[in-house]
């Protein structure tokens, strides 16, 4: 009765998957960590590191007959914030770092500054420029500034793909490793294999159950970034979702591998953190991997989360296509295939 057999098999797979999803939904902490925590992180970090116009440098002008026109001229410079001081106050303010430059309008004009302070040197150049222009200097060459703080190069544009990658890793690894180990420790696995349940159905249901949360998880974080911070999506949306799916499958493999033999929940917590911690730090979630020394780069770039983050940023910020992210896709796939193969080989049911 092949049809009937197929029906039973799908029925068992469906019931196992539904059970897995319910198990997750009935764990409020898990729901918080998967859905709310990454959004909270994005809010906090997004506002903390948001772009501000560069600060004006505070400078002092020694009060006297020429100080008032000097302050007016210096205010024309976008880099300076001049204020009048008595000679005494001005020297004090300069010494304590309250101002970067003290201008004695003279004549002759005298700049008081500490040459070792970069801000002082910038202020001197800007003040000189402003005063010379006010005195009637004409620039023989015309120049124009082109600002480069466009979408895709801000910190939040860097952060959102990183958080998404980190979340896909965390949820993938935790949702498999924790629930399988807990089932083994409590001998639920043993009870299940005493039934005619296909073992593959159980493992498949763990993955399907995890995939059930994938879409809301992506939509929440990426949608939040898009709506609130105007984070771009320059590449193909289909490629983006396919990449998320591939990354998730790969981390499910890693989760399965972590859970394949551990007997206790404490043991799996330690092991999962041991696997994930280096990637939180090294894989470019919060800051660029370029900050690590060159010798470490090949290793860092071989990590699955590094590859996923690079590919996510490539699609979202740079509009890269499948050819450009092919090396990252290969790394992610390799981790997944090897993890699944080893996990299935060494998996312990009892």
């Amino acid at each position, binding site marked *: 009765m092949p049809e009937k057999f197929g029906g039973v098999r799908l029925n068992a797979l469906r019931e196992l998957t539904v059970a897995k999803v*319910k198990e997750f939904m009935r764990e409020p902490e898990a729901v918080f960590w998967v859905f709310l925590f990454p959004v909270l992180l994005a809010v906090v970090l997004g506002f903390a590191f948001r772009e501000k116009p560069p600060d004006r440098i505070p400078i002092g002008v020694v009060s006297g007959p020429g100080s008032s026109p000097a302050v007016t001229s210096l205010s024309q410079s976008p880099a300076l914030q001049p204020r009048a001081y008595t000679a005494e106050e001005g020297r004090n303010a300069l010494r304590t770092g309250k101002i970067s430059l003290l201008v004695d309008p003279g004549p002759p004009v005298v700049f008081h500054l500490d040459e070792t302070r970069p801000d002082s040197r910038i202020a001197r150049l800007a003040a000189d420029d402003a005063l010379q222009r006010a005195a009637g200097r004409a620039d023989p060459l015309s120049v124009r500034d082109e600002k480069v703080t466009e979408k895709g190069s801000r910190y939040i544009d860097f952060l959102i793909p990183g958080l998404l990658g980190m979340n896909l890793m965390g949820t993938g690894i935790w949702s498999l490793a924790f629930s399988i180990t807990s089932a083994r420790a409590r001998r639920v696995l043993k*009870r299940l294999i005493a039934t005619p349940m296909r073992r593959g159905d159980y493992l498949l249901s763990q993955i399907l159950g995890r995939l059930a949360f994938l879409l809301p998880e992506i939509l929440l974080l990426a949608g939040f970034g898009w709506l609130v911070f105007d984070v771009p999506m320059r590449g193909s949306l289909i490629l983006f979702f396919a990449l998320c799916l591939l990354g998730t499958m790969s981390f499910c493999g890693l989760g399965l591998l972590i859970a394949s033999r551990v007997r206790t929940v404490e043991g799996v917590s330690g092991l999962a953190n041991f696997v994930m911690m280096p990637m939180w730090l090294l894989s470019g979630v919060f800051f660029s991997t370029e900050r690590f020394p060159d010798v470490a780069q090949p290793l860092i770039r071989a990590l699955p989360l590094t590859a996923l983050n690079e590919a996510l940023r490539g699609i979202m910020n740079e509009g890269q296509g499948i050819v450009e992210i092919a090396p990252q896709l290969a790394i992610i796939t390799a981790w997944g295939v090897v993890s699944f193969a080893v996990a299935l080989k060494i998996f312990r049911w009892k």
Partner: protein
Amino acid sequence: MASPTPSSAIRCRGLVKRFDDVVAVAGLDLEIARGECFGLLGPNGAGKTTTIEILEGLTEPDEGEVEVLGTTWQGDGHALREKLGVSLQETQLNEKLTVAETIRLFRSFYREGRDPEQVLAALALEEKRDARVGKLSGGQKQRLAVACALVGDPELLFLDEPTTGLDPQSRLQLWQQVTAFREQGGTVLLTTHYMDEAERLCDRIAIVDHGKVIALGTPVELIRSLQAADVVELLSEPMLSEEELRRLPGVSDVHRRGPNWALAVHSVTESVPPLLAAVEKAGARLTHLSTHRATLEDLFVSLTGRELRDA
């Protein structure tokens, strides 16, 4: 493959299982007929659970042959599992699921089985159908475990200590379910360290100690093998010697039981008067005297010199 005996549900010969340097099962033979309720009775650590898990196909024996419902556990045993119902010792189930969800999940593993609603009702779990497994009492959890074992409509039911730690009412409910299952022609193998449970439910009993069967038969046969209908327990100050007690008329066996002497006797009326006379003659003071009908516990004490509960 050995030719299957149609009448036998379980056959095993020479089972041996070692864990590190501990021998859990040391050459165990069993033959259980279809339709029979068979009990493995023994103290904790006697090898009951290891034996039942070997028969369930969950543990691989180091030596010996196993045949369950005419087949061996070679291969994945998938077809065989369709016909088995299993309740593990202290079964734990997913605490986040409800009772009804759990039963439905187990039902989905079997090609044919019972209606989950009917199983729910049979085990008096209807009121708890929407309760999370984690919130159930010990008795309710155990009933749910048996419900999960029955929902696949098995031919053979394995129950590993199904009533350990249960209140009397829950025990009674479980016993009724086992009896009902047998009335429909099912075969049961259960382990227990309660003699009353074994006497009440089982057609035959194997008493297991140190991984071996040390006595086998119907409850009546086993008690008869004690060659005593009654047991007299006494404590006196000072204590009488074992030889003095053995010389008394009608005494077939003498054992220590806690601080007391336990005398297996043919009849209380034959042995108690000479016993009292012997106490008086020795100038001892009687501090405890009681009698009861001989039980499997007495047989176990007689065979091993130890008690079931704390052996």
